[in-house]
């Protein structure tokens, strides 16, 4: 039994130490960070890194773009997912099995990056916001989860009763099914939203215009490619370099905190979501 606790505490430490290190560094002085003096507690605490990050126009634009992509993307994706999952969850819909198979097949085999790129190009979506919202709009996994939920959590008798009362399919969807499917909508909206917030590849492929770039692209430019974080001070090179180092830590916190804040509240739903997927998948 002691072994179990040792194991789990070790796991906790391994997960937490890198996170705490990043947060502690983000609040430390530029000099302390660059000298490698920070471990798990801020050294010479300051908010300098956050000031620089929040006064950088590329970062602010990226943040605003990402908020837009996340909200709009989740709305589009949830709507389309319900539009496909609800009909496919109805047992008496003719052609249901074939359509479901055709949808699931796209998980196993894909045309590839270039053939998809050509479609996006042909639709005139290159360098538009649509390029980030449309090509990834529907996730097969989310469709599977939605079908499983609609089939298992909404009793068939409710459908029958509504149908006998003369309600049309659309009316049943809006007045009976959707109000009962709130947990499902919450789960898939979050899955899509988080995927959008974190997505990077599509923007790399389809966008050139920096005004449309989501936060992840801005982050990559500053954090991975090490291009200047845009410290506008004409101070000495040394100080600029130190500030650029500090900025990286603050940026990581800024980009991650929104997710980690909502996470404890939604983890419960999320777990249910994966479980449905895992059991039915």
């Amino acid at each position, binding site marked *: 039994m002691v072994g*179990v606790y040792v194991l789990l505490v070790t796991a906790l430490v391994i997960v937490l130490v890198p996170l705490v290190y990043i947060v502690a560094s983000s609040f430390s002085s530029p000099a302390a960070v660059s*000298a*490698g003096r920070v471990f798990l507690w801020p050294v010479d605490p300051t908010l300098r890194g956050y000031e620089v990050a929040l006064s950088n126009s590329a970062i602010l634009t990226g943040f605003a773009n990402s908020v837009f992509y996340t909200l709009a993307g989740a709305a589009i994706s949830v709507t389309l997912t319900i539009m496909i999952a609800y009909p496919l969850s109805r047992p008496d819909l003719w052609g249901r099995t074939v359509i479901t198979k055709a949808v699931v097949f*796209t998980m196993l085999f894909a045309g590839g990056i*270039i053939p998809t790129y050509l479609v996006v190009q042909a639709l005139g979506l290159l360098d538009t916001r649509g390029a980030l919202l449309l090509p990834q709009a529907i996730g097969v996994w989310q469709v599977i989860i939605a079908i499983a939920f609609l089939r298992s959590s909404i009793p068939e008798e409710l459908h029958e009763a509504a149908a006998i009362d003369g309600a049309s399919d659309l009316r049943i969807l809006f007045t009976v099914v959707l109000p009962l499917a709130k947990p499902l909508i919450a789960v898939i909206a979050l899955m899509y939203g988080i995927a959008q917030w974190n997505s990077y590849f599509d923007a790399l492929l389809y966008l050139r215009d920096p005004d449309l770039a989501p936060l992840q692209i801005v982050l990559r430019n500053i*954090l991975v490619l090490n291009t200047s974080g845009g410290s506008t001070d004409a101070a000495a090179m040394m100080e600029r370099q130190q500030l650029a180092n500090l900025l990286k830590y603050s940026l990581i916190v800024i980009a991650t905190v929104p997710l980690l804040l909502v996470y404890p509240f939604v983890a419960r739903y999320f777990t249910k979501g994966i*479980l449905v997927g895992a059991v039915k*998948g």
Partner: protein
Amino acid sequence: MRPGKVADAAGTSTRAPSAARRSLRRHWQLYVMLSVPLLWFVVFKYVPMVNAVIAFKQYNVVDGIWGSDWVGLANFQRFFDNPVFGRIVSNTFLLSVYAVLAGFPIPIILALAINEVRLRFFAKTVQLVTYAPFFISTVIIVSMTILILSPRIGLMSDVFGFFGADDPNILGDPNAFRHIYVWTDVWQTAGYSAVIYLAALAGIDPTLYEAARVDGANRLQKIINVDLPGIAPTAVIILILGVGNVMSLGFEKAFLLQNPLNLSQSEVIATYTYKVGLINADFSLASAIGLFNSVINLVLLLTVNKVAKRVTGSGLW
């Protein structure tokens, strides 16, 4: 490819056509609703599959996909003859196999351990904390890795300094790339995967535990004889999915972790395809590489599924 395809295929099923007509009349609203997302699947999933024919053509922008000349397997030949072929295929393969082997047992151990803990609060805390990194984006994970491993200022240099050693340039060492890739992946996803096993453990019939207790089983015997068999079907499915994805290794992380020093081990099929296709604009060659990758992937998935079904009786379908 066209919407008609679905109807044709469905028409050959054993259902009587009158049932089809009745369903169409009764549920026309559902079919109208369904047509929008289906159109999406046709445009963004099936049209690219058709577009993949440019792998067999000498694509040029002026003539378009269908006007360009057929060249048979020449693009594939170019890929196979290229000196990088062996290297990127083996890089992709080794990296994926390593990721599957390392990533498979750890969530199981984590789930078994969490399941043993009697303190509910502690168990919940471990679960919540280990699950959290799953939500962090790849860009951030890679940035954190770079910051932590960077020589002189990173967290790792503190560790080396503590032991009085000089910190090596881990990020620039090609042989370290695979370990960095795989273990940051484990760090990020182990808690998330453990949740699936915890659910499987929760679903085990309680009478089995009672029987084990009556038989005088201790903790370890209970884990070996009740817990492990109980999660075996779930584990098989997760393993199959992992192996099935062996070749389709995530582009993002490898691409972001690449630097000129580690390229000999970090260039994988996905990153190479991106460079050939979008940087060198050789669409036909890139499509051939992508198609090669997709086919291998599909074959692997089908094979592993068949083997798993024969050996364990459970598979994906």
